[in-house]
């Protein structure tokens, strides 16, 4: 048997009472792509942070290429040939690409020779692996896909043999993710060892050679990817059987509930965030809004939820909604029958230090049900919250616990329960499963579909294209504050939507049956290249940065 690139034995790490890693053992073979999969809080990132010297393990041993290695800090990890691409990039935003690459790996006290050498090496790395980035571009002016490539270049410039990537595709479009996987494949073929941390089963199946599953701080299993299935992995992750596909019957759309005509929003800096958006949403259907974050989806939800002012016409059940002035607030929207699960649950959906029962009525707290003369009827609110929590499988079902003490998935269930229980005609739901475990995702999806089957309308915004495709009946794609196209979810394809998310309608997009494409979407022959998509998005990114 060959000597593994990495071998960890008996790694344990606690944060106070929480045991994040418990007696972990793992072997990663040289020249392979090894996936580590697990739910949020399973301990994947902690384990990798220990390997990168960011945290110190309480117990255990690390062997790099068969040598027992102590990794007290990141410097030691770099010296041992380990490079890490964090989920949140560690880049200096107002430095150039070159300066970021050189930082901490300078050759001497003077900068110029280091920069000149790095420029040459970057050119060579770009040629070898297809990692093209303009070395003189300032980080804040380039798109996230390119920023990620800078992170990879940083690691390679430091002679990394082992590359750890933490949730690398969370911020990428499908085409960018494919490009990343091609680069990773090339790195593997050159003999590099790659560890890919993710919670997306599709990525594991697509690119890894072997995969380790973590659950609640423990290593459950390590298997060859070829010998396993997504269903098996999901079961190992959650510890029970899960439905990966959303089970739903075809939609039976009824009368229009929400009619949006010519809706525009301009932010405080004068930048148009929504530009003449028109959409119709009917009873008993789920409309998914797809797009790269920051292209107007959030603003649309905020205007409809009464959190932001806009211009244009919006009708709910035929009655126009106030888009500005005193009646354009969340209170009025809820009274009109719009439920809203905001994108950022911790900032907009919950008051974190408040208890679950208090959180269970926010937005509806003026409802006469909860009043007892001039006072709040706390006993009945608590009783209601307890019953609600049991029904929505919030764990633990203790209404007196503060919202911040629940896990992400359970926090989301509290918000979803509150909004769904009011029986809204229209439910706005943003990123319903961001940072939510597979088990809870399944549950939340079921609740959304049950609401649809009661004849309610649902507007879904998500950066997860898989979620949009599996949950929606119809899909609309946004780019640069405009709707680029809409059509049935059945005929939508990943690649077709991917181009449209950058405003490009290539062959894949035009092949999607029964889709209406906007005149703003640029028609082109063939499939749009990653470079073209990135250029489109970076241009948009530059616009967005002006707001700051």
């Amino acid at each position: 048997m060959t000597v593994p690139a990495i071998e960890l034995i008996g790694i344990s790490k606690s944060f106070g009472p929480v045991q994040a890693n418990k007696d972990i053992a793992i072997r990663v073979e040289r020249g392979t792509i090894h996936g580590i999969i697990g739910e949020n809080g399973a301990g994947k990132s902690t384990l990798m942070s220990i390997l990168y010297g960011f945290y110190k393990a309480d117990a255990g041993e690390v062997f790099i290429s068969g040598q027992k290695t102590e990794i007290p800090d990141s410097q030691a990890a770099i010296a041992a040939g380990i490079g890490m691409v964090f989920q949140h990039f560690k880049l200096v935003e107002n430095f150039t690409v070159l300066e970021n690459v050189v930082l901490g790996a300078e050759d001497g006290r003077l900068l110029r020779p280091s920069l000149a050498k790095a420029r040459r090496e970057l050119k060579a790395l770009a040629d070898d692996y297809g990692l093209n980035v303009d070395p003189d571009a300032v980080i804040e002016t380039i798109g996230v896909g390119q920023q990620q490539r800078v992170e990879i270049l940083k690691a390679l410039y430091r002679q990394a043999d082992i590359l750890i990537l933490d949730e690398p595709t969370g911020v990428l479009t499908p085409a960018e993710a494919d490009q990343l996987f091609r680069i990773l494949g090339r790195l593997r073929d050159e003999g590099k060892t790659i560890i890919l941390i993710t919670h997306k089963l599709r990525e594991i199946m697509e690119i890894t050679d072997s995969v380790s599953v973590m659950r609640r701080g423990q290593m459950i299993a390590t298997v060859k990817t070829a010998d396993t299935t997504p269903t098996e992995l999901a079961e190992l992750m959650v510890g029970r059987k899960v439905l990966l596909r959303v089970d739903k019957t075809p939609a039976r759309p009824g009368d229009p509930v929400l009619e949006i005509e010519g809706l525009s929003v301009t932010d405080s800096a004068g930048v148009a965030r929504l530009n003449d958006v028109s959409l119709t949403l009917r009873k008993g259907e789920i409309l998914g809004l797809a797009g790269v974050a920051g292209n107007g989806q959030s603003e649309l939800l905020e205007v409809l939820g009464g959190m932001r002012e806009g211009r244009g016409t919006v009708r709910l059940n035929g009655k126009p909604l106030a888009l500005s002035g005193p009646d354009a607030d969340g209170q009025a929207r809820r009274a009109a029958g719009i439920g809203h699960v905001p994108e950022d649950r911790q900032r907009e959906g919950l008051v974190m230090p408040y208890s679950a029962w208090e959180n269970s009525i926010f937005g509806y707290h003026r409802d006469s049900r909860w009043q007892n003369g001039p006072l709040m009827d706390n006993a009945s609110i608590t009783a209601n919250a307890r019953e609600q929590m049991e029904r929505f499988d919030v764990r633990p079902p203790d209404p007196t616990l503060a919202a911040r003490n629940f896990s992400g998935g359970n926090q989301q269930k509290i918000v979803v329960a509150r909004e769904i229980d009011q029986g809204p005609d229209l439910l706005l739901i943003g990123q319903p499963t961001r940072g939510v475990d597979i088990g809870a995702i399944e549950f939340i999806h079921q609740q959304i579909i049950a609401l649809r089957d009661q004849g309610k309308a649902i507007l879904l915004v998500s950066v997860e294209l898989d979620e949009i495709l599996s949950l929606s009946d119809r899909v609309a794609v946004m780019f640069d504050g405009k709707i680029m196209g809409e059509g049935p979810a059945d005929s939508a394809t990943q690649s077709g939507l991917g181009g449209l998310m950058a405003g490009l309608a290539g062959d894949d997009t035009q092949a999607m049956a029964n889709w209406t494409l906007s005149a703003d979407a640029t028609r082109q022959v063939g499939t749009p290249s990653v470079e073209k998509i990135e250029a489109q998005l970076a241009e948009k990114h530059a616009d967005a940065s002006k707001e700051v």
Partner: protein
Amino acid sequence: MDFTTALQILDSTVRLSTPLLLACLAGLFSERSGIFDIGLEGKMLMAAFISAAFAFTTGSVWLGMLAAIVASMALSALHGLASITFRGNQLISGVAINFLAAGLTVLIAQNWFGLGGRTPSLETGARFESLTLPLADSLAGVPVLGPIYAELISGHTLPVYFAFACVPATWWVLYRTRFGLRLRAVGENPAAVDTAGVSVIGMRYAAVAICGLLCGIAGAYLATALQAGFIKDMTAGRGYIALAALIFAKWRPWYALVSCLLFGFLQAVALRYQNIELGPITLPGQFMDALPYILTVVILAGFVGRAIPPRAGGEPYVKER
């Protein structure tokens, strides 16, 4: 206003700008590393007193300067300990240092010299003398350029030349050395520096130490060059004006030179004229004193470009959980 008066005001501008410039560059190093330092005033004051006391006692201006630097760096170390190691609030630590210095200097001065909180006047040898640059006397006769060279450029004390030399030196360190790259990075995104294998704490302590060094020289200049001896509260808000100049300069060395000269000029004008007659309006001298702050507010309000501070400024670095 004739040529001689203008020259005198400019000459005074140079002398008054020097402590501002040193303190401003001190603040630049500290704040570029992400450590806000409102305690420039206190460090300068302490250094001014210690330099005068040691220069008087030993008779050597250089020993006074050395002691001042040690004292100022000790206060810097205190600020570093509170805000880097113990991750305390940087503003509170800075304010504490200002109060500490204001009280301690007078208390110790009274105890040592019994002159009501000041030091005795310093004799020759215990203070910096003006330097005459080569050919200053012989060129003084040349029209216009001669007096400018002889009066404005020549005839200042050593710390003045040092302060002005610090500007290109700071620029070079910041933009042409490894240390400068890391310093700028640590004030923008310490996590990037940490994951690159460089010690955030080490970088920040180094920056704070340089800040202490420069403040020490600034304080010693006040007591042993600009004036001959220490008097109570002799910094008179210069530390705050230096901070204002730093914002005005958008944390850049050459801009710092310009803003410190501007603020020094305002001080020189206020010093020379009690009131300024502008046709029907008479501006009181106090207006000149207030002008640096007013200009800073204008800058902060975004009227003249934008002053974007280092992004990680004021935040203690904690590894994310």
